[in-house]
């Protein structure tokens, strides 16, 4: 008990003021005391009645015994003394019947035995006494007082019952302590030990009573609790690690991350967000997001609603449309991509939002740069052809609907090639740059000026009637004419041929307009250059030019449909056997019906529309593929000549292509001879020189085709390290009859021999010409005299 009450705990609430056994004992005790007293009262009342009854019975018994006694004495001794008899027996009678005193009255005599006190209870009775004869006698018996008796009875009874109750209470308390308090306090001790961290402590399960049952139950609960706690600890650890990882991730990622509460107040900013916004995490905490992150439209500078606020309003991911920029605290703008998403708890309620800011300045600058490069010409800064066509498309949209009139100028420079050839590409580029500036100043604000390619420019004149377009075109022509280009002490006059096309409700097809402009420009050139020519559908010159375009389409179709075929024509040695076997590869085209089309019909169109490079590559690849089928004779050197056009020579990738293709098909380069025309070589002199030099390293040979047709053939011959000179057929064809032609052939042959260059005469058609050539020392001859061109291989076999 003392243990129990003195057990101290940290908290006053934990103190047990009245233990359970004490309470039970107290209740039982008090109850028993009360019940005991009630029983006592009841029993005492009964005892009082019983006492009175006993008194009367005792008196009656006394009277009877006295009668018997006196009668016995009288019979044995007639003369007995009644008083004496009564005196002799009064004492034992008093003791026997618990009589304090009695009074006997007989025949006027009165005898008193014992001390009579006022508190004694008296009982009067009569009896028959035989004395001489039967006489009436009266007796008064004095019993102890009822009050006194009851008091004694009370004391004894109360003391007994009280003692019993007290004893019972103490025993009960002890028993209760053993069965309740002791196991209870053991459980308390176990619980306290568990609280102190001794997790292995368990409640005593050995008892078979409710405490044992409770202990087993609690132990199971503790085991479960510890298991859950362990899992919880693990979860906490995992969660902590996850949180750390998330924080480190947020700290490390390259995007700015801002988290806010559900009312838009900033809770966290990672370092990138701090850098982008110009605010620190501490300073921005609990501040409304729109006061820290101010987003504007990058294109027009308009303030945009913060996506995080929109996200919180609509409970969905939000990102502004268009290009966004962040207005920093220092007033600077940063191009950003921004998005905001709501953060939800496990019940799906929105508990805040997260905003991600990505600095896209670099990417956006690159995009701008790429966009600029995609739409502008790098050299002049003007729009390029692609952009020009886009603007043209836009302009054409409203032509028919709104009956507008536009005009398109197609400008081609007249003397550009001379500048390029004589002063190099740098000069040509500079000329184009200066002309770009000049042209820009000559058109109206809003007119679209573009470089369409090479030395071609285009001007789109929106809402411009024909006469106005003519004036502007003429003004441009005049300006270009008056422009004098100076490069390293050399001055050049430049001209411009301008084709003009009117765009109206009758003429608004994009492909037609560009084609018509090109045709008109070409016509202007054909008509003598430095002029403006308005497109006329009935123009014969234009019709001819249309023929070229028509042929270009045919060439393209044939190319796509594999209708190009290769022929070979032998080149015979005139200086005896032992020399190499030569042949020249020629190209033909088949029409849709399979008829052969001669190169004179389609090559000009292919040259005009930049198809030659493609055709030449096709030829090279197919010759390399089927080289073994061409002029292959055991023990004799073979030379296969392939023509290269001027456009192909200008192709920067041609050298790599030839090398790669040759290696692919294991071609012996010393069997390959490339023929380049004199004009093509001169037109791309630097590139031609480089190509010849590099391919000669591989073993290739070079022939200068159509030599003599140009004006300055001999001058350039010194600079071109070719192996063969092919004398232009126009000199050879009539040399028998024309002494000048014959002299030209002879001169070329001599020069070639002096320069250790072998000569080949073209167009040899008869025996007499051949004899002249042989006499002159020409090394090789080629022409119908030796045979018609033969087909090398069917195209389908390629």
């Amino acid at each position, binding site marked *: 008990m003392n243990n129990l*009450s003195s057990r101290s705990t940290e908290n006053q609430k934990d103190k047990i003021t*009245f233990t359970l056994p*004490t*309470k039970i*004992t*107290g209740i039982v*005790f*008090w109850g028993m*005391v*009360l019940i005991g*007293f009630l029983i*006592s*009262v009841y029993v005492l009342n009964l005892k009082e009645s019983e006492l009175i009854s006993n008194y009367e019975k005792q008196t009656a018994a006394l009277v009877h015994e006295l009668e018997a006694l006196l009668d016995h004495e009288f019979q044995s001794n007639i003369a007995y003394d009644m008083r004496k008899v009564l005196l002799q027996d009064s004492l034992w009678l008093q003791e026997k019947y618990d009589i304090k005193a009695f009074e006997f009255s007989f025949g006027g005599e009165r005898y008193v035995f014992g001390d009579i006190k006022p508190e004694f209870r008296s009982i009067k009775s009569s009896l028959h006494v035989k004395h001489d004869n039967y006489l009436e006698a009266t007796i008064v018996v004095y019993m102890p007082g009822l009050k006194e008796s009851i008091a004694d009875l*009370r*004391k004894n009874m*109360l*003391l007994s019952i*009280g003692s019993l*109750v*007290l004893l019972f*209470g*103490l025993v009960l*308390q002890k028993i209760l302590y053993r069965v309740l308090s002791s196991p209870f306090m053991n459980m308390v001790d176990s619980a306290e030990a568990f609280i102190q961290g001794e997790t292995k402590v368990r409640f005593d399960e050995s008892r078979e009573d409710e405490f044992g049952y409770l202990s087993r139950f609690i132990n199971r609960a503790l085991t479960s609790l510890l298991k859950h706690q362990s899992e919880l600890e693990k979860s906490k650890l995992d969660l902590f690690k996850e949180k750390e990882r998330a924080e480190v991730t947020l700290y490390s990622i390259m995007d700015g991350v801002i988290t806010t509460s559900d009312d838009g107040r900033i809770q966290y900013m990672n370092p990138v967000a701090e850098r982008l916004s110009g605010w620190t995490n501490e300073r921005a905490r609990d501040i409304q997001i729109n006061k820290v992150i101010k987003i504007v439209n990058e294109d027009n500078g308009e303030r945009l609603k913060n996506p995080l606020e929109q996200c919180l309003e609509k409970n969905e991911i939000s990102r502004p449309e268009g290009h966004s920029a962040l207005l920093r605290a220092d007033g600077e703008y940063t191009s950003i991509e921004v998005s905001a998403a709501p953060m939800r708890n496990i019940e799906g309620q929105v508990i805040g939002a997260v905003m991600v800011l990505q600095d896209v300045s670099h990417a956006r600058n690159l995009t701008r740069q790429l966009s600029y490069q995609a739409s502008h010409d790098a050299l002049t800064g003007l729009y390029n052809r692609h952009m020009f066509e886009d603007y043209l498309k836009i302009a054409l949209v409203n032509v028919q609907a709104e009956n507008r009139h536009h005009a398109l100028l197609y400008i081609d420079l007249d003397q550009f090639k001379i500048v390029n050839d004589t002063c190099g590409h740098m000069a040509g580029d500079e000329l184009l740059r200066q002309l770009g500036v000049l042209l820009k100043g000559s058109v109206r604000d809003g007119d679209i000026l573009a470089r369409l390619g090479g030395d071609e420019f285009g001007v789109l004149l929106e809402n411009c009637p024909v006469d106005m377009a003519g004036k502007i075109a003429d003004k441009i022509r005049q300006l270009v004419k008056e422009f004098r280009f100076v490069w390293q002490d050399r001055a050049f006059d430049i001209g411009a041929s301008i084709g003009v096309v009117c765009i109206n409700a009758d003429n608004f097809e994009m492909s037609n307009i560009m084609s018509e402009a090109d045709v008109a420009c070409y016509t202007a050139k054909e008509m003598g250059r430095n002029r403006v020519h308005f497109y006329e559908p009935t123009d014969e010159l234009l019709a001819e030019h249309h023929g070229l375009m028509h042929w270009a389409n045919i060439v393209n179709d044939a190319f796509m449909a594999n209708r190009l075929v290769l022929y070979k024509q032998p080149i015979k040695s005139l200086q005896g056997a032992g020399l190499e076997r030569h042949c020249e590869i020629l190209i033909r085209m088949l029409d849709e019906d399979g008829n052969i089309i001669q190169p004179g019909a389609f090559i000009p169109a292919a040259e005009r529309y930049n198809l030659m490079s493609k055709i030449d590559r096709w030829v090279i690849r197919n010759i390399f593929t089927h080289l073994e089928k061409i002029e292959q004779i055991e023990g004799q050197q073979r030379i296969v000549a392939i023509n290269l056009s001027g456009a192909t020579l200008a192709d920067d990738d041609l050298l790599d292509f030839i090398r790669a293709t040759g290696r692919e098909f294991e071609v012996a380069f010393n069997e390959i001879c490339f023929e380049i025309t004199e004009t093509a070589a001169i037109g791309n002199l630097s590139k031609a020189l480089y190509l010849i030099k590099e391919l000669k390293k591989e073993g290739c040979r070079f022939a200068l085709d159509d030599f003599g047709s140009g004006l300055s053939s001999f001058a350039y011959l010194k600079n071109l390290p070719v192996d063969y000179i092919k004398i232009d057929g126009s000199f050879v064809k009539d040399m028998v009859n024309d002494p000048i032609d014959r002299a030209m052939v002879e001169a070329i042959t001599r020069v070639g021999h002096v320069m250790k260059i072998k000569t080949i005469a073209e167009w040899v058609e008869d025996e007499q010409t051949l004899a002249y050539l042989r006499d002159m020392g020409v090394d090789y001859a080629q022409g119908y005299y030796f045979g018609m061109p033969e087909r090398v291989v069917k195209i389908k076999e390629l």
Partner: protein
Amino acid sequence: MTNRMYRGVLGALLLICLYFDFTWLMYGIITVLFFEGITSLIVPKLVDLFGRLVAPGSSFFEYKPEPCSVGSRFGFESERCWRLVVGSMLLVTYYYYDMLWFFPWFMGFAIFGAGLSGVCPVLLAIRWAGFK
């Protein structure tokens, strides 16, 4: 001396008085109870003072009052109140002993039992009524 011990002694004395009809002692006890209740000089305190004089440091005489009820309505101490109540009841019931003879006996046993068990319903009721 604790109040619990005091109640045990007082109960025992009451039973002795009743059993042996020590009327003078009964009235003496009633007087002491009233004295304690009125003056606050309750016997455990006096025993404590006495103990300090005769046996300093002894824990037997040391008075260990129970903590007062927090938030009580009256400033009057419950122990003093208890003594006045018990004294009054004893005086009345003993004076009319013939009629209320069982009350003094009941009180004697009850107080003695309170001393043994440590639970006194009257004291609890007094505290419940708001005495500190």
